[in-house]
């Protein structure tokens, strides 16, 4: 009846029990809060059943913040353990638990914090920047979010019920095969990633069609904001790469459930095939994470330099170049697996080639600042931090791409320092920049600049302290994922430095959380009185009120250049005409949430081998999908008169604060 689930699954060691209790208390507090403030109806009508891309974007960000808390806690635990566990001491985590912690850390950060940031930003910004009222497939977009949230929730459940995988964030076989990992951990990992991955695939299809088919009149591809270009390249990568992940995870799951021999050691299985397939997906994945953040910087630097982006065409070609070459570099993740020097050298050279367009982008951003008027607002601070940290990580990437050098640093802490420089220096700082930049657009008020200033210093110094010593530790022979080492290695000194850096990073994160709540508390003081354009922006999202009305644009704009809003403000283009028309918008639906819920049950059932529940929830998914996809197209109508009234009401309420 319960498959292989027993009461034992609810028993954990002291540390984990505390985490579970914290989670449960948090959930209960949330329920109580929602009940006390009578918010259930709003939650259902305005958020759970919404198909509005702006609301969906905000929900993505909320999940990102929650999962970031989890992933960051994992990181602190890893570094604390490594500082303490020397010689006779085993630290505070046993080896098996430690391995679950770092596996969860990587999985959470890549699939939920990283992908969530990307999809959150795409949802919030793309339709506004291309002058569209909605995305191409509002329901599919919502469904993509609910599958993502379902994966996130399953990963939180894996903390409380049973054990998670100890095989790392990519679960290489043979370690992840039934032979060496017979428990539920790897199955949890498979279904968490599989469900979230399918959400990403359909979300990617949605944005690909949105960008290609829904740009406003006059916005040719070469007049699109670079953020939209970078997202276009990211979704091309999503659509081409994620199916590989889906198939590979399915095969690993078949190995573990019905005993097939895709990646087993016996029966003719080939686990090296898994490694090739997973990285054929995995390398495009890291570009999916970074390209939109490059796009974010391409918006922020021109805005705060009061100058057009330098070399627009060059930037576009650089993006396309990166996109296509990213499919022929995957082997650099396993140069040490014994391939011939012809193979290794080819992939090494291809990897180096990708560094060229990345460098070009950095120079173009710098020269956007050249002879501009640079304002060091919060977003620009994060750009500065990005320049300092990401460049070094990129350089060490070049070192890693030379196979004989890689032989000496692969899987050591040198590698960890490199890729964290890319994801923290690039993806995370890009996300912070985007968050501080676009926050006023969706709320109508600014974030507290002073608290962000302190957070920036914590992140910049903390990052340097927590990750630069890792390069040297790698040279000293310290490999990744170690839960213990001997005192004679001499590594503890540097691990202490690294932990201090982690504490500083933690302070930075705390300041950011506090800053968010403080800003909301002080919102009247920080109100944006500029009618939706607080930063003197250049692109279309700043031409509509903050927060944007549900239909985004009362009148669909026509553009005739890049930076259309800048042109309007500086007389290069005529201002938008105020002609109001009837607007049809999609209606709310609960189907996305239900399919997400059934997917959660399905993933849980498959993990614990509760076959009856798996079958029922799978059938429920199919039935709900069929009902939704065969139902008639329905829209709600906002008449032109209502639009006109909403527009004038917004302007009046904007002026009334202050």
């Amino acid at each position: 009846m319960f498959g292989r689930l027993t009461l034992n699954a609810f028993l954990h060691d002291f540390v984990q029990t505390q985490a579970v209790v914290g989670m449960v208390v948090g959930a209960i507090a949330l329920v109580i809060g929602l009940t006390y403030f009578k918010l259930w109806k709003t939650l259902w009508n305005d958020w759970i059943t919404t198909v509005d891309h702006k609301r969906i974007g905000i929900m993505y960000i909320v999940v990102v913040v929650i999962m970031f808390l989890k992933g960051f806690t994992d990181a602190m635990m890893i570094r604390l353990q490594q500082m303490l566990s020397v010689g006779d001491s085993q630290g505070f985590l046993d080896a098996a638990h430690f391995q679950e912690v770092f596996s969860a850390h990587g999985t959470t950060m890549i699939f939920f914090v990283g992908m969530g940031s990307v999809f959150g930003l795409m949802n919030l910004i793309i339709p506004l920047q291309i002058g569209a009222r909605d995305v191409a497939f509002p329901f599919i977009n919502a469904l993509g979010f609910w599958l993502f949230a379902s994966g996130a929730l399953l990963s939180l459940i894996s903390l409380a019920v049973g054990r998670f995988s100890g095989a790392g964030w990519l679960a290489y076989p043979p370690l992840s095969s039934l032979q060496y990992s017979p428990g539920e951990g790897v199955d949890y990992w498979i279904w968490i990633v599989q469900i979230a991955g399918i959400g990403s695939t359909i979300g990617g299809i949605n944005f690909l069609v949105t960008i290609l088919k829904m740009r406003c009149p006059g916005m040719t591809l070469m007049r699109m904001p670079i953020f939209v270009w970078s997202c276009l390249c990211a979704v091309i990568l999503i659509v081409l790469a994620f199916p590989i992940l889906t198939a590979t995870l399915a095969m690993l799951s078949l190995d573990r459930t019905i005993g097939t021999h895709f990646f087993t050691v016996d029966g003719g299985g080939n686990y090296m095939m898994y490694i090739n397939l997973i990285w054929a997906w995995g390398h495009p994945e890291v570009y999916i994470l970074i390209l939109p953040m490059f796009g974010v910087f391409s918006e922020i630097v021109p805005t705060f330099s009061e100058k057009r982006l330098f070399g627009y065409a060059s930037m576009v070609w650089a993006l396309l170049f990166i996109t296509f070459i990213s499919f022929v570099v995957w082997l650099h993740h396993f140069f040490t697996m014994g391939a011939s020097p012809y193979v290794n050298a080819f992939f090494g050279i291809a990897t180096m080639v990708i560094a060229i367009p990345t460098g070009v982008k950095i120079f173009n951003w710098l020269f956007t600042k050249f002879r501009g008027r640079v304002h060091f607002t919060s977003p620009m601070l994060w750009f500065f931090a990005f320049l300092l940290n990401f460049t070094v990580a990129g350089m060490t990437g070049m070192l890693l791409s030379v196979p004989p050098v890689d032989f000496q640093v692969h899987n050591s802490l040198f590698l960890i320092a490199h890729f964290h420089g890319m994801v923290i220096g690039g993806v995370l700082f890009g996300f912070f920049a985007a968050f501080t930049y676009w926050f006023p657009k969706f709320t109508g008020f600014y974030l507290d600049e002073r608290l962000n200033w302190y957070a920036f210093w914590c992140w910049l110094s903390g990052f340097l302290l927590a990750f630069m010593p890792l390069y040297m530790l790698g040279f000293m022979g310290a490999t990744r994922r170690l839960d213990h080492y001997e005192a004679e290695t001499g590594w503890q000194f540097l691990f202490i430095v690294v932990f201090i850096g982690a504490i500083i990073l933690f302070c930075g994160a705390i300041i950011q959380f506090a800053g968010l709540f403080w800003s909301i508390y002080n919102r009247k003081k920080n109100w944006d009185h500029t009618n939706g354009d607080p930063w003197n922006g250049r692109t279309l999202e700043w031409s509509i009120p903050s927060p944007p009305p549900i239909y985004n644009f009362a009148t669909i704009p026509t553009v005739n250049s890049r930076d259309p809003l800048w042109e309007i403000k500086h007389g290069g283009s005529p201002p938008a005409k105020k002609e109001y028309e009837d607007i049809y918008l999609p209606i709310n639906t609960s189907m996305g949430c239900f399919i997400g819920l059934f997917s959660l049950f399905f993933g849980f059932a498959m993990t614990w081998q509760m076959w009856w529940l798996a079958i029922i929830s799978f059938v429920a998914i199919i039935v709900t999908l069929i009902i939704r996809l065969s139902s008639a197209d329905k829209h709600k109508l906002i008449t032109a008169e209502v639009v006109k009234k909403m527009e004038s009401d917004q302007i009046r309420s904007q002026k009334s604060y202050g």
Partner: protein
Amino acid sequence: MKIPKKPVLPMLIAAGILIFIILLMQPFTILKFGDKIGVLFPKGMIGYEQRNLLFIVQALMLLVIIPVYVLTFMFSWIYRADNPRGIYDPDLVDNVPAEIIWWGLPFVMVVIVSVLTWIKTHELDPYKSIESKNKEMTVQVVALQWKWLFIYPTEKIASLNYLQLPVNTPVRFELSADSPMNSFWIPSLGGQIYAMPGMTTILNLIANEPGNYRGSSAHISGEGFARMYFNTKVTSKEDFDTWVATTQGTTNKLEIKAFNNLALPSVMDPQIFTLEDPELFDRIVNKYMHH
């Protein structure tokens, strides 16, 4: 809301100081830890070649990185909004010569590094035997959960979690595993290679200085993986021969049954054996094959 102005000069100075402190950590740690930094102070020719390649590529990269840092600081200072002396040229959006430089120079650099990569990847192919006036010896390595078994087929001995090698002798390691994937790495001697079940990989290394060097597994293989470290003792040929002779006299025998016991998941102290079965390594590699 009025955006508070950031103090740009103090910010740049503070960032500069931070970077300087971090840079200082490099020579400091090198002085403090010296030879413990196996990759930077290798004791074998392969490691030595790999380190030199690292330095060359690093130096080339600095040619790109240093200008980026300099420009970052310079432009942040000169073109800050409240600098009356900064030229403001909002129409400067393209400059073909500039683009040619920063597409072109990195391209040239990548070509140089690519040629170097091609040549060195072939030269430093782990499968390539090392040329030396001394005769090559073979050590068969089997990764187990969670220990390393070293089989000396010619000497007919074996050791667990302990490797002894003669100095200046090319060693051909033949690697396999009866465990999940592991990675065999002795940083002081040279780069690593994966040790995988059902397959054989080859790694050629040579130790040019006597000493004790740490080796470990660089790929996670289960709970006890952090305990998979071993000492590599490099001695003179005479001392090595003495050790071989002593080991050949031990009563601890290694054949397939004893091996199967070793292969059970456990962490063990170093041991030595006489090799009862010269075909043992092949048997281990073929364990999962169907005949």
